[in-house]
């Protein structure tokens, strides 16, 4: 059981970091469906940098930097050019998928460095993720800048009238979101599975994106959702960790996805939408033109 929990926390960290950045970006009104691409790029450059320099810190910084840059690029398309955010995000994902495969292929294989120390059996990224969740909650719900972020995502015109620079807020948030996506990728390739393989995430970025909607844009619910999904993921892969010999592997493997369908069904009911629908940022995904 302890191993299941440890692995679940480590897996959930990747989801949490990416989803948390996206949550803040969405709170400001910018949707980035290319999250997986940012994670792929962050993870790839972090891996290459760490392997080339022998420094984990430089690797993490490279992941943050490239994630931030791609977030900024997405901001340029969706804020300055007022392009369709879904199209821009998908473009980033496709670009990243192809480019990381091209750039990373010569680096295929294990990282080949001493492992990152694991205080109390957990990667330091796990602790960092929890701290960031708490910080994000405080920022969004308990501070003035948080109010500005939420205002930009709810009613940008009103926010602008009240003196908030919506474009600047959105740029900051989407760039910060990109940085966290890059950090998430770095966490994967430097700590969780320190081996470079093309398309190594296999859809975890999209899972992170879905978790943001599941969380109703609340960091603590996000943490809980990510932990639950990661635990189910681990259980579906290795039921022997707690329930050896029970049920077929095919049934176990469906567990996370069946649960996802159930949850999505519930949150799409009129009752749920009426009760919780207000949590969705009103201006999410809509370009803002200053009047």
């Amino acid at each position: 059981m302890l191993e299941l929990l440890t692995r679940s926390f480590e897996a959930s960290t990747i989801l949490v970091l990416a989803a948390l950045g996206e949550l803040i970006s969405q709170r400001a009104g910018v949707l980035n469906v290319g999250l997986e691409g940012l994670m792929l790029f962050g993870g790839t450059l972090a891996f290459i940098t760490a392997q080339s320099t022998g420094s984990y810190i430089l690797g993490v910084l490279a992941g943050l930097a490239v994630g931030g840059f791609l977030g900024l690029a997405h901001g340029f398309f969706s804020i300055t050019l007022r392009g369709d955010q879904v199209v821009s995000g998908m473009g980033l994902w496709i670009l990243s998928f192809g480019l990381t495969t091209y750039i990373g292929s010569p680096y295929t294989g294990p990282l080949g460095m001493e492992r990152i120390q694991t205080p109390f059996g957990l990667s330091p990224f796990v602790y960092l993720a929890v701290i960031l969740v708490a910080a994000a909650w405080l920022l969004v719900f308990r501070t003035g800048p948080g109010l500005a972020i939420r205002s930009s995502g709810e009613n940008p015109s009103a926010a602008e009238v009240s003196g908030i620079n919506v474009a600047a807020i959105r740029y900051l948030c989407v760039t910060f979101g990109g940085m966290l996506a890059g950090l998430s990728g770095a966490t994967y390739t430097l700590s969780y599975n320190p081996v470079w393989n093309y398309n190594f995430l296999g859809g975890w970025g999209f899972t992170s994106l879905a978790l943001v909607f599941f969380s109703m844009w609340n960091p603590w619910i996000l943490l809980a959702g990510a932990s639950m999904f990661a635990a189910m993921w681990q259980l579906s892969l290795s039921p022997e960790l707690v329930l050896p010999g029970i049920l077929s592997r095919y049934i176990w493997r469906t567990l996370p996805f069946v649960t996802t369908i159930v949850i999505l069904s519930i949150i799409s009911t009129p009752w749920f939408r009426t009760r919780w629908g207000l949590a969705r940022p009103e201006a999410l995904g809509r370009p803002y033109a200053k009047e």
Partner: protein
Amino acid sequence: MKPLLSQPRFAVFRGFALVVLLTLLVGSSGRAPAPAAAGPQKPVTLAILHFSVIKGTTWSGAHHRAAQRLAQKYPNVKYVYREEVGPDATVPFAKELIDNGANIVVGNAEFMGLPLGTIADQYPNVYFGSVIASDLTQKRNFIRFFPRQYQALYLEGLIAGALTRTGNIGIVSAFPNIQVIRRTAGFYLGVQDAAKALGKRVNVYVKYVGDWYKPTEERDVARTLASQFKVDVITQQTDSGSPLDVAQERRIWFVGKDMDVVGFYGWSNTNTVAVSFDTRWEVLYDRMIRDFLAGNQNPRTMLYLGMKDTMTLADGTVEPAVDIMNNKKVGVDAISPRAKPLISASILKLVNQRRQQMMKGQWDPFFEHAFISNGTGLALKGTPIPAKGSVVKKARQTPSDEFLLGKFNFDLEGMIILK
């Protein structure tokens, strides 16, 4: 007096006899002469459709290396390729390459077989080829091929069975399919032969991740095998480097597949990789090229080559289609210097003996051993999984290639397939 045949009236006969003698000499060599040695040859373009990227992959990487080696050996052979070819792109890319002069078009994933076979009739002068997973469809100019990797896997199994101290060996596997089942059977027979020779019990655990390439799942499954099932030797029937990394992390032995990843990619070292096997697709492609150069309108359409089938590379190295290999060493020398002292002399001798026998075509694990069903595997249409304990093939019987490639759908008795 001159001998009878030296007399002028026998000059025509002498010429005829010389031609017959030369023909006999060439014919009796057992294989066609190397085209490079036969003077100028017509140009041949070998086109490979790689289903994945080449760099950093052991499957497409090995096919790419094979074609490069052939181009190096035969100056008249040109190699062209396309990467990341999906099912929808197989025919368009094949046609494009043919339009640009390709004479032999090969797909290195089975999903390319059906589309290539479909267009084979449209290009009667082009050879088409596709690796086999279970479908054996052939046509006059549509060749199916696969190496007998199970032979090298048997040798790996001997080494793994001797190396394990916990008595537990783990296999991170893709999903039940004939290729996986056949290769795993070769490995398993080797493990059990080593266990029998050493008088110990060895469990082989197989855990599926669901596909050939799932880096994250492969890692988690490898960790589970190490932590829950106490495996101290791990191997894989999947394609990512994750199980190798877990072996390094846990300081357990790794047994590699498809390619010598230490020698060619430097992904690890012999402190982790006990042994690996290397697939030389060039030996199979070489047969196609030689048939083509010979102007054969009816080439061999089934190539299932093993350790007894060899070719000579440009540098003079004679290599079999498959062999155990590690850090660019072959045979018993391929065993890690750190692992070798842990393996008893009798097993080392057995590895060497079996390898030599297989290279001479005198022995084969699938001939020697009975196939007794474990009751698990892959149910095929018209071929259900044989009941547990049923003897599908007796010992010292040769299974047909068609059976091995298309109907071997059950795990061998004693294997532990995890849920």
